[in-house]
């Protein structure tokens, strides 16, 4: 993980507290702090997502606590992208006294943890676990990211509406819930929209070589390659497509965000790639600029969408908590009830880095506008 500027170690785990310079126990002038737990992969193959969310959350935490009205305390635990470890992390956080959960970062652990949070009545806002199953049937679990459902549908609509292509090839990760989830929704929506899917191939986390998938797409005359996958394999797909001199339009999803910030990446490979992403690091609005600056300063990296999700979760919680009149001395259940009410109320809307005017349905899904982006000269440009 990155290096937090303000870290105090409480018995229960890592605790990033409110006022960096003066206090180590998290209770500053505003009285006791609200205990927010975070869960995500900080080690292992998916560590990049967990660390991004954690780092983004930390930046938000500092800002929020500096504002001075509500005080937050964040304890972020590693789940190694594993359901069992995630439940362990969750229980550790419960022992610590967690009142609200910012997590989990990835879908599989979320599927393990959210039923617990539902049973324990701990309000949960996940930054990036995007499967509909995460929120399904759980009144106190909310998503900040698009659900896979929305992404798949939105992508198909976007492609059809903007006539980006007619013959579509898809390469997705059949060992990954996120990728498969988007793929399935995309297919059904694409059919409805009259798009023709000419080639569907898969890979797994262990795959390095995409020759077969690309050749098949090429041979079937696809004019658009839909990649509902994360940016690491995407970077391999793009470089191998280039090596094969296969030129095609590429359309990605939010997991592809980050490809431009991949250290040492040859961005010309991604030239012309289109994707739906809620967050763009080189956006020029003040909040994004300030966030990106702080992030670079603290973690020496350009933030990706996950970092922004983490940041937004903290702020969304902050605003909702303020609105609901949540205080640190309330029980988790009290907070839970109040926050549900706010999140599902008609007059609550949240502006964040990953979208403005976000609102939540009763089922826990967020509604926000996906932004269609295209990469031009190594930078995102709105479509």
């Amino acid at each position, binding site marked *: 993980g990155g290096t937090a500027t303000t870290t105090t170690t409480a018995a229960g785990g890592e605790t990033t507290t409110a006022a960096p310079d003066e206090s180590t126990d998290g209770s500053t002038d505003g009285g006791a702090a609200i205990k927010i737990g975070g869960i995500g992969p900080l080690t292992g193959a998916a560590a990049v997502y967990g660390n991004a969310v954690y780092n983004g959350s930390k930046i938000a935490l500092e800002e929020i606590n500096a504002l001075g009205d509500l005080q937050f305390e964040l304890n972020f635990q590693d789940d190694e992208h594993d359901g069992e470890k995630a439940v362990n992390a969750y229980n550790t956080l419960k022992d610590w006294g967690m009142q609200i959960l910012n997590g989990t970062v990835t879908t599989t652990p979320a599927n393990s943890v959210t039923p617990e949070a539902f049973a324990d009545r701990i309000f949960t806002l996940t930054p990036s676990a995007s499967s509909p199953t995460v929120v399904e049937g759980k009144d106190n679990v909310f998503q900040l990211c698009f659900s896979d459902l929305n992404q798949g549908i939105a992508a198909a609509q976007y492609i059809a509406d903007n006539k980006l292509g007619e013959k579509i090839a898809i390469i997705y990760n059949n060992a990954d819930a996120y990728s498969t989830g988007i793929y399935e929704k995309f297919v059904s929506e694409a059919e409805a929209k009259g798009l023709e899917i000419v080639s569907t191939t898969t890979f797994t986390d262990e795959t390095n*070589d995409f020759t077969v998938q690309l050749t098949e797409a090429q041979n079937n005359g696809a004019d658009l390659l839909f990649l509902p996958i994360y940016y690491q394999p995407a970077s391999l797909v793009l470089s191998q497509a280039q090596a*094969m001199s296969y030129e095609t339009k590429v359309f990605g999803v939010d997991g592809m965000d980050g490809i431009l910030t991949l250290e040492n990446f040859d961005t010309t490979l991604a030239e012309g790639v289109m994707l739906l992403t809620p967050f763009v690091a080189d956006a020029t609005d003040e909040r994004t600029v300030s966030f990106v600056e702080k992030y670079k300063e603290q973690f020496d990296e350009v933030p990706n969408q996950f970092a922004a999700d983490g940041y937004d979760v903290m702020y969304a919680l902050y605003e909702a908590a303020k609105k609901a009149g949540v205080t640190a001395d309330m029980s988790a259940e009290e907070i839970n009830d109040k926050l549900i009410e706010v999140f599902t109320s008609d007059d609550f809307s949240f502006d964040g880095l990953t979208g403005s005017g976000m609102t939540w349905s009763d089922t826990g899904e967020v509604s926000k506008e996906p932004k269609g982006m295209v990469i031009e000269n190594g930078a995102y440009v709105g479509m």
Partner: protein
Amino acid sequence: MDFIAYLISGISLGSVYAIIALGYTMVYGIAKMLNFAHGDVIMIGGYVSFVATANLDLPPAVSIMIAVAVCTTLGIVIEKLAYKPLRAAPSLAVLITAIGVSYFLQNAALLIWSSNPKSYTSLFKFEPLKLLDGELTIASVTIVTVITGVIVMTTLSLIINKTKIGKAMRAVSEDKDAAQLMGIGVNKTITITFAIGSGLAAIAGVLLASAYPILTPTMGAMPGIKAFTAAVFGGIGSIPGAMLGGILLGVIEILGRAYISTQLSDAIVFSVLIIVLLVKPTGLLGKKISEKV
């Protein structure tokens, strides 16, 4: 046409497995241990050469040399600290220690280089080979990998079968006490073995990253397992077997994906492996160890 293109990418993938498998088999053959940390030394090799080229702007040749030097040293240090104290222990104990070392290297890399992946730039930038009016291309890294594989295979075979130190290695692998009674320094011999194996891992790291240019702290794990599979496939302990096993594994993986199913590609590779082993229980080129009764 497609078939040939698939074959080429199979060989390309397989030659990377082969290089890794050579290192695996070498250490296994002599130290009689499955060094599950081998894949992670490869990862370190990839990162070191990345730092040398991308961050320090050193030329490719120098970067490879640095990677080899670092990994060789690392291999020797790991051997001294983690494996040597277990010389008399059952081989499974060493296997578990190797897994500990693997965790250690992955997590150390995570702390040093962060979880953010890095994009690697191939060190072999010469023009790819174009055949049949550009219908077929053979990537430069593939050419380098295949040639390196053949050179490494030949050299290792010569070392092990013909040189004094190579024979000493084999003696040590069979019976450490008896080897000592011959005047062979067991520790020195095993250290040399690890040094060679780790140096090879560095080269494998550069080649792997050049072929599939993304670096993550866990990048060595799966190629490591595949290479171990390849080594067994070819007949573990057999140097030419590792080469053959690696290449075949790559080819099977790609062809299986192309002509059977992309969804089941891993299952296909491993099923073929099982079938081959049932027909040839000691791998393709493995010696049938005849036990005199």
